[in-house]
């Protein structure tokens, strides 16, 4: 499903369009979301073009039964990030929409109605602070994701593996066992599509420290040292490829096909967010196998004998600051988080603090994985890491340097692990010096 990942180009255009509109924004930040009873017709904009005519119609029916004075209309956008940014230059961008990633924290108030203070919202919802500014929360996550590795249980069992690997070395041994005793490709990088490689960055919580990125990563001169997150995760990726445990020709991989390959057991393992689990289960069923074949394991790294996994919010529902039916819009957002069951059906963690745990993450419960919510960067520091990234030209959130890493590891480019990581560290340290703390 292409809607999952963001095309960087589109996001930037979107950001530029927003920056322009911010100059001409004449919107009134006053008014409250809670004035009056929910009534009127609201337009809800969604990125889920695939289920807007099915699942969302069911939501509409149930919601309107509960709030008879409200009529809900949907608009689904294919290229959500790109299209919504253009719309947001006008006042007409629906009543409820998802906060685009291109909106910076200080712009939130220009476009969205504050839902309440972060403290107050946090009693009910997870990860409100991800889209907050000046103590005000602006959105409620549609679902919450965690990070780990999807794997085909049948293949791993056929290779005689019974315990989850707890260190990168064990993980490599296990992949070797898969290579030796089955026909499956032990690990699939999805190199050609690129964005799946960016998933390697998303699990800094595996280090078990909510403050990790406020003390390491952009605050370290050596993120690729053997005991820091990027050294561990990228190091594992390097070793997988260098040991020949990944697909034969990474340049011709195909994301849609990779789902079928994993579902049918031709590929054993892929590192992806928990959002991928339901898609893989579906692919397994479509390939004539069972959804139960798909397992989800935490990143093979333990702190004090415990696995940790980062949780992060997906898109967040928010209210258009220009909406004429804010009460109805707010009712929808709350209903969507609390009663629609969207997160649960998607196999995600509930956006509610006390929401139901999804069945898809039963493996994590069994493994005793502890979830880690990362602390956002302190005020004024939000852009620091991305500045270092841009100055160093090492795209932590992208795929350019990880594709190079794979090329070096498979011998298609010059260098080895030490020289490659030393160069990354060097460029990173230089960039940090150039940006300044």
């Amino acid at each position, binding site marked *: 499903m292409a809607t999952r990942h963001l095309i*960087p*180009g589109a996001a*930037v255009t979107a*950001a*530029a369009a927003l*920056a322009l509109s911010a*100059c001409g924004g004449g919107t009134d930040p006053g008014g409250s979301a809670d004035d009056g009873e929910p009534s009127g017709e609201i337009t809800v904009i969604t990125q889920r073009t695939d289920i807007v005519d099915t699942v969302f119609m069911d939501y509409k029916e149930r919601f309107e039964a509960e709030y008879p004075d409200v009529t809900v209309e949907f608009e689904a956008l294919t290229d959500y990030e790109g299209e919504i940014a253009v719309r947001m230059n006008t006042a007409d961008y629906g009543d409820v929409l998802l906060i685009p990633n291109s909106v910076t924290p200080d712009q939130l108030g220009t476009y969205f109605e504050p839902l309440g203070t972060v403290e107050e919202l946090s009693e009910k919802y997870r990860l409100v602070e991800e889209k907050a500014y000046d103590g005000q929360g602006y959105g409620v996550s549609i679902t919450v994701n965690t990070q780990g590795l999807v794997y085909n249980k049948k293949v791993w069992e056929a290779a005689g593996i019974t315990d989850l690997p707890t260190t990168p070395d064990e993980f490599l041994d296990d992949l070797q066992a898969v290579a030796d005793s089955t026909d499956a490709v032990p690990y699939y990088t999805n*190199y*050609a599509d*690129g964005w799946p490689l960016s998933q390697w960055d998303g699990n800094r919580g595996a280090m078990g420290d909510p403050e990790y990125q406020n003390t390491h990563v952009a605050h370290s001169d050596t993120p690729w040292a053997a005991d820091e997150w990027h050294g561990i995760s990228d190091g594992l990726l390097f070793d997988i490829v260098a040991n020949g445990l990944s697909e*034969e*020709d*990474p*340049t*011709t991989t*195909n994301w849609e096909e990779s789902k079928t390959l994993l579902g049918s057991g031709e590929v054993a393992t892929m590192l992806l967010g928990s959002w991928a689990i339901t898609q893989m289960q579906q692919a397994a069923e479509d390939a004539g196998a069972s959804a139960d074949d798909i397992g989800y394991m935490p990143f093979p790294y333990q702190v004090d004998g415990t696995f940790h996994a980062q949780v992060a919010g997906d898109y967040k529902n928010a209210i258009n600051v220009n909406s004429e039916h804010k009460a109805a819009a707010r009712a929808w957002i709350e209903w969507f988080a609390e009663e629609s069951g969207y997160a649960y059906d998607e196999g995600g963690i509930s956006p509610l603090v006390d929401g139901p745990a999804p069945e898809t993450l039963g493996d994590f419960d069994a493994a005793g994985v502890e979830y880690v919510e990362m602390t956002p960067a302190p005020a004024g520091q939000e852009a620091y890491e*991305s500045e270092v*990234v*841009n100055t160093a*030209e090492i*795209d932590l959130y*992208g*795929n*350019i340097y990880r*594709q*190079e890493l794979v*090329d070096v590891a498979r011998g*298609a*480019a010059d260098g080895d692990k030490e020289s490659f990581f030393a160069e990354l560290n060097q460029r990173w340290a230089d960039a940090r010096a150039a940006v300044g703390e």
Partner: protein
Amino acid sequence: MSTVSSPVRGAAVRTTATPPPAPRRRGPGRGWRVTPWLFLAAPLGLLVLFTYVPVANMVWYSFTSWNGMAPVKEPVGLENYQRIFTDPDMFSVFLVSLYYLAGAFLQLGLALYFATILSFRTRARNFFKGIIFFPYLINGVAIGLVFLFFLRPGGTLDALLALVGVAEPPQWLGNPDLANVSLASTSVWRYMGLNFVLFLGAIQSIPHELYEAADLDGATSWQKFRYIIAPGIKQVIGLTTILAISGSLAVFEIPWIMTGGANGTTTFVIQTVQQAFEFKKFGLASAMAVVLLLIVLLITWIQRRIFPDEKVDLT
């Protein structure tokens, strides 16, 4: 004008409105002089608005460190240009263009060959014309995807090679030594049709009597090509050569879709896009675009010196 050619219609027009335009047309009044500019206003306005203003902006950005979003554009002087000309990683990507340049000359040769053959009486020549031109009509994204399947391990090409006994074909895109060759070949397949049509059109505009005269003199096909066709389409050859050179410096679509610039296939334009959109260095990216523009202008100037715009006279 139709009012003159058709008395009936002229009468009808006259009854509906306006006095006869004749007196106004004759005098050198002001309205007459402004009229052409009024007609030109729309295209010139669009040209300025969508070509010269953006280019001027780009040149301005190239002297700043703008990140694409910030309201302030910090001037940095020549820093961006200095980086382009001192950082070896920046210019080494032009080496990738050499693959496409080689491909472009192969493409011109093939196009000229086919255009010449098909301009003579050949069996099913319209069918072959269609086949050769067809790839150019296909969307570049579609071509990229089709060739991805064609070139992948165990794909169509490998299956074809297996039929003729090649058991272990190389990785066409995975092998860094071959990836650019594969991409350049895809590019040749796609753009040969355009060159072919340009050549064919030029060849067919050569007067037919010249061939007849040549036939009477007993000229061979090669002689006809050498002394009639080649000089007759010299201008078009010069033009397509320039297009091929500047095109191979500015390759973007095919490698972007097929490999995304990975595995050593990054071209100058891909690098520009990455600097602008991945690393938010619009200033540097603008400078790179300016450099590319200057290189293309330089090549065009050289071409004009080699092929001056003279009138071709075959007689």
